[in-house]
């Protein structure tokens, strides 16, 4: 690294400059840091130009180039490239006009010329040290000056924050992941809004009835801002999502965000409990199946799991109601927040798919890990079976399982609409379904986007969990 070669003993400046140089190597970050610290960049750039002309670097480059040109090296290269191209065309039986060949040959030759020039320059510079000045070096020499350092912190604070984030691999990983999540959230808002915007449906006509006059429809559209241009509406919607104010719904004239805030916790609580119970049941089943592969127990468990994956939620819910509410009056058929007994059936129905998916994933991933070499080593060392399984196998098998849980949690939150309809739960899913017939654009928009945001946050948490639990990912993170 250049940073080590030019260490000066000034601790702060060295560390800062090393980070600065590293960031400059990365195209996206380079742009960001140059922009974030624009005032500092300008100062450094002016200093860089001054230093460069002072050190005589440019004159050396010119000198070397002229020397090379004079020796007729370029013409030599040109001839060689032309010959090469002609032979290539003859081999493949292609016919290319001479003009194009000449252009290609010139390109090849100049490329080679530059390469040789760089090599010669490097040789020359290694003889006389301290001649080549880079942008990073300029910053380094400036940073040693305490006055510049204080000034740059004042005028280029964002740049230093970026450098602090970049310097720590964990912080950098978290920042990148959060940035991605924010990008996805805006993308989702844009996508859902656009889908609803280009919809051929006419909510005004649907709500006001067929007898509505054109004026009434126009007034309706004006009240809800539907007559504004696309970009204005999009901007208002995104602003609304961020400020939790999506306005009033078309039907019922209720505040959309308040309605969603009332419904969302119901769905979230049910799915969360369902996930928890599902994982608690599925993990042991998967591990038992994996430790006895192809046994009767394994086949039975996996058959039941596949059955669980194949049952539609609404049918399962109906059968449960038929058996446990109608035939045997054990559980209430509709959900009531004050009666925990009524939550049992929805939770079981919601959790079935997740249980099945996690059990299958646990089995296959544990089986895969069990056949790894390090498990054989652990066994060969004479460790107890139980110890090998729990300490060495399950821990490593958990990584893909966590992914599946994260993904399935999202699917569950989205798919809750069906279960909510069966058990008459007033959650976010049934809210969206009720509103879609009009279509009540702000309500659907809010419901879908807030659900997607929740799922994105869950996925960020899952990803961060990985980073802290899996040593392989940790070491990979440090490398980049």
């Amino acid at each position, binding site marked *: 690294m250049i940073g080590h070669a030019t260490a000066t003993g000034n601790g702060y400046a060295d560390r800062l400059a090393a980070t600065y140089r590293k960031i400059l190597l990365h195209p996206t970050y380079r742009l960001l840091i140059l922009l974030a610290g624009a005032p500092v960049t300008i100062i450094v750039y002016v200093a860089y130009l001054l230093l460069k002309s002072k050190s005589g670097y440019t004159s050396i480059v010119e000198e070397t180039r002229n020397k090379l040109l004079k020796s007729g090296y370029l013409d030599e290269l040109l001839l060689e490239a032309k010959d090469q191209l002609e032979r290539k065309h003859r081999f*493949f039986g292609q016919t290319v006009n001479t003009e194009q060949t000449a252009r290609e040959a010139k390109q090849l030759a100049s490329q080679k010329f530059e390469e040789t020039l760089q090599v010669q320059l490097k040789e020359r510079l290694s003889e006389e040290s301290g001649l080549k000045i880079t942008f990073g070096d300029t910053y380094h020499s400036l940073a040693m000056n305490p006055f510049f350092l204080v000034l740059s912190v004042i005028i280029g604070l964002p740049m230093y924050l970026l450098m602090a984030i970049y310097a720590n691999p964990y912080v950098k990983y978290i920042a990148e992941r959060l940035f*991605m999540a924010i*990008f*996805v*959230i805006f*993308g*989702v808002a*844009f*996508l*859902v809004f656009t*889908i*609803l915007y*280009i*919809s*051929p*449906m006419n909510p005004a006509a649907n709500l006001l009835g067929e007898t509505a006059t054109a004026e009434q429809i126009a007034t309706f559209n004006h009240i809800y801002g539907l007559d504004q241009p696309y970009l204005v509406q999009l901007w208002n919607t995104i602003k609304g999502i961020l400020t939790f104010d999506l306005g009033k719904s078309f039907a019922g004239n209720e505040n959309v965000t308040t309605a969603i805030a009332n419904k969302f916790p119901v769905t979230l609580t049910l799915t969360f409990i369902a996930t928890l119970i599902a994982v608690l049941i599925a993990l042991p089943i998967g591990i038992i199946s994996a430790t006895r592969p*192809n046994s009767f127990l394994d086949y039975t468990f996996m058959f039941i799991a*596949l*059955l669980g*994956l*194949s*049952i*539609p*939620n*609404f*049918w399962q819910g*109906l*059968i449960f*109601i*038929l058996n446990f509410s*109608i035939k045997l009056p054990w559980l209430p058929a509709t959900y009531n927040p004050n009666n925990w007994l009524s939550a049992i059936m929805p939770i079981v129905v919601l959790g079935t798919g997740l249980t099945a998916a996690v059990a299958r994933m646990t089995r296959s991933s544990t089986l895969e890990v069990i056949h790894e070499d390090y498990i054989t080593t652990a066994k060969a060392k004479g460790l107890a079976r139980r110890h090998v399984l729990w300490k060495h196998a399950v821990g490593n098998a958990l990584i893909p399982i966590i992914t599946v849980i994260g993904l399935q949690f*999202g*699917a569950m*939150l*989205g*798919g809750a*609409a*069906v279960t909510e*309809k069966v058990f008459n739960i007033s959650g976010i*899913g049934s809210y*969206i*379904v009720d*509103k*879609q*017939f009009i*279509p009540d654009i702000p309500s*659907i928009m809010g419901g*879908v986007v807030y*659900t*997607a945001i929740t*799922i*994105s946050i869950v*996925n960020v948490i899952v990803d961060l969990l990985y980073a802290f639990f899996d040593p392989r990912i940790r070491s990979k993170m440090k490398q980049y």
Partner: protein
Amino acid sequence: MTNPSITKQEVQFRLKSSQEYGQASFSGIVSLALALVLLLNSYIPSTGAFKPVVLIASLTYFIFTLLQLAVWSLIRRDLIQFGAIKRSTRLLGYVLLLSILSANLFIATAAFQLLKVKKSSAYTLSVYAALTTLLVFAVSALNIFKPYVANGFLIGMFLLIIVTVLQLAVVLLVAKYADKPILPRFMWVVAFILILTSVSGNLFALFLGLLLIAKLRDKGHTSGSKLGEVVERLSRSSTSMLGLLFILFLLTLSITSYLTFDYGMAIDNNYSLILQSPNMAYPLGTDNFGRDLFSRIVFGARISLVVGLMSTLIPVVIGGVLGAISGYYGRHTDNVIMRALDILYAIPGILLSIAIIAAFGASTVNLILALSVGAIPTYARTMRANVLLVSTLEYVQAARAFGSSDSAILFKHIVPNSIAPMIVKSTLTIGTAVISTSSLSYLGLGVEPHIPEWGNILKLGSAYLETHAFTAIYPGLAIIALVLSFNFLGDGLRDALDPKLD
């Protein structure tokens, strides 16, 4: 031969390596479970009596289960004592074949495998082809109890009989000749007849025809075709073959129903026959408009298969192409495509479908498009991962050195070699698509309500859950059976093709 002191491991090995033993235990257990389910269903708790028809069916299943378990113990004894199954035990397979009369496919397929010592993929395919046609014939024949039948019923049944006879003859021919290294010339005729019969939707016959032609053209020069290899590996798992059997049974039934089933029965209201319990004329009863549930479910299979296949095919193609381009060109192309798909990936499938249908209205085409859009990112990710892997291989470098264009390298060399995981993944997700279709229909967002689709039938039936539960139970069973079949097939294909799935 007999060695009294063989170790436990040897016994285990002999039992595990015998296909017949595994199939016998599987079919015995499944048919026992079915017999118990039927027995439970025949009991009426309110009166303490039994429904005679269901009870008889249950008893038949019990008898065949006992027979199968007896054969199972004989196979076990033979394997432990002699290391192979005796001829006399194999001959018992003919007795077990009778189970097909009680529609017990599990025992019947096991019996077919038991009869033949050396099983070839051609034999397996021919058996399954004949079984499929036989099943379709039996199910279509239930229509004769109805007050009237479709116009094409007689022609359809006649054709089905001919096809059944032809395919049974093929089973015998294949059993006799298919093991020979060089097939006799008349097999060309057999192969063409088979391909002709596959017009009914019986793809087993198509595969068998292609397999025979491949073998005829090959003239014993190579060890066998790739299709034969996959079928052979697939046929080792009873569950995946049964899954495929059920899917192709539904496909054939959907196609032949144009002749043998009357669409009027499924959609015309008949107020004199409202909510009839299952009887001979209406095997699954009638709904609240007096429409025959059995016909409705048969016609619903068509919609479910079409929507399931289309909403898998579209994202496979679009996602596959995007993933391939993304993985091959890398860098900025990759970044742009994958980030755009990340947005799509963040919205759960059902929710995105609801939003799209809310915007464009509920219809079958919109449903297919809505389900397709949500599934694109998954396929793109799978394809991208495979393309990344394959494009580092030597033959891709060789193609580049020869001056092939990027598109030729990508679509001729890389994509065909990274398609296996896509096949497995799509088979596994057709089931999900079928569930999503019926779920959305249940919510009133899917197929138009007047079309007999399984979710629509269930939605109507759910209103009569207390009094006429069967109207909601049977369509649900049909959905589960189809989804389960696709899942079994997908699992089997994954083992047979053995791609490295991420």
